[in-house]
């Protein structure tokens, strides 16, 4: 805790060494969280940089009401969802423009992405899981991803999402129900 307070103060004082320590401690966490949401290595890298810049620029306003890690997760999740929405808008636009082109080509392709941290024997099935996760509403997506992929506790997730712990459990249960529904649909497609 004392370490975290020292780090926060160092960042507020704009000390370069504090920034480097902060990057060392958090970049893996931030990158992996971003990767779980945006499903693209270069997007995750770019997003991680944006998160650190935001923290650097906003640290003077950090009141310490939550832990530093909770605040960083919150920024990461928020920026990840913004990027996903922005990509979905571009995809829709690309689809519309593809309707007006004479050539009959698809401008966007379905994603069969798998988190690099998934065990080798599970990769094929995990690809379907990630397809299904994509279809979840945002709140369920956040709760499920932070729980299963980032392995945060429900208490930590509740702090990140600024909701009650009971609400987190409810979101995860609903996410699983919806995932089962989507996966049954995918099973019917492939079999």
């Amino acid at each position, binding site marked *: 805790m004392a370490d975290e307070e020292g780090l926060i103060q160092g960042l507020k004082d704009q000390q*370069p060494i504090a*920034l480097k320590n902060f990057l060392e401690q958090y970049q*893996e966490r931030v*990158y*992996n969280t971003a*990767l779980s949401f945006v499903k693209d290595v270069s997007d995750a890298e770019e997003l991680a940089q944006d998160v650190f*810049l935001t923290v650097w620029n906003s640290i003077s306003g950090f009141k310490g009401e939550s832990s530093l890690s909770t605040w960083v997760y919150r920024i990461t999740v928020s920026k990840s969802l913004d990027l996903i929405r922005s990509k979905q808008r571009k995809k829709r636009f690309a689809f519309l423009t593809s309707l007006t082109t004479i050539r009959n080509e698809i401008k966007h392709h379905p994603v069969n992405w798998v988190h690099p941290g998934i065990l080798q024997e599970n990769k094929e099935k995990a690809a379907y899981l990630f397809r299904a996760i994509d279809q979840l509403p945002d709140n369920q997506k956040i709760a499920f991803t932070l729980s299963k*992929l980032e392995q945060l506790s429900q208490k930590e997730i509740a702090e990140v999402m600024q909701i009650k712990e009971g609400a987190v459990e409810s979101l995860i249960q609903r996410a699983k129900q919806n995932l089962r529904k989507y996966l*049954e649909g995918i*099973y019917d497609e492939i079999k």
Partner: protein
Amino acid sequence: MQSEKQKWVEDVLSSAEGVVRANAPDITDAVLSRIDTAGQYNIAPSSGDNSMIWRIAASVVFLLLLNVVTIYSYQSNMKRSMQALEVRAAASEFGLGQNTSSDPAAAIFGN
């Protein structure tokens, strides 16, 4: 007893178990280079942000000019179309352009 579909669904759901963190690329240098290091770490916009403002202003001016050109071109076309309609209306009033007779003189001067 679980059906094959249900078993498959549960297998897929549990495929994320035991996931490990992927190795993060070292972005320290990238982050530092994006922060203004000219003597101080500050939040003030860098010269790059000023050029953004100029680019936005230039885009706005360009769009305004495009609008003006489009409106002018539309008005010119409308004017030409109206003039053509007026000529046609005037010509039909005098029986011109209808060509009801094979006699060109009759077509111009009537019967």
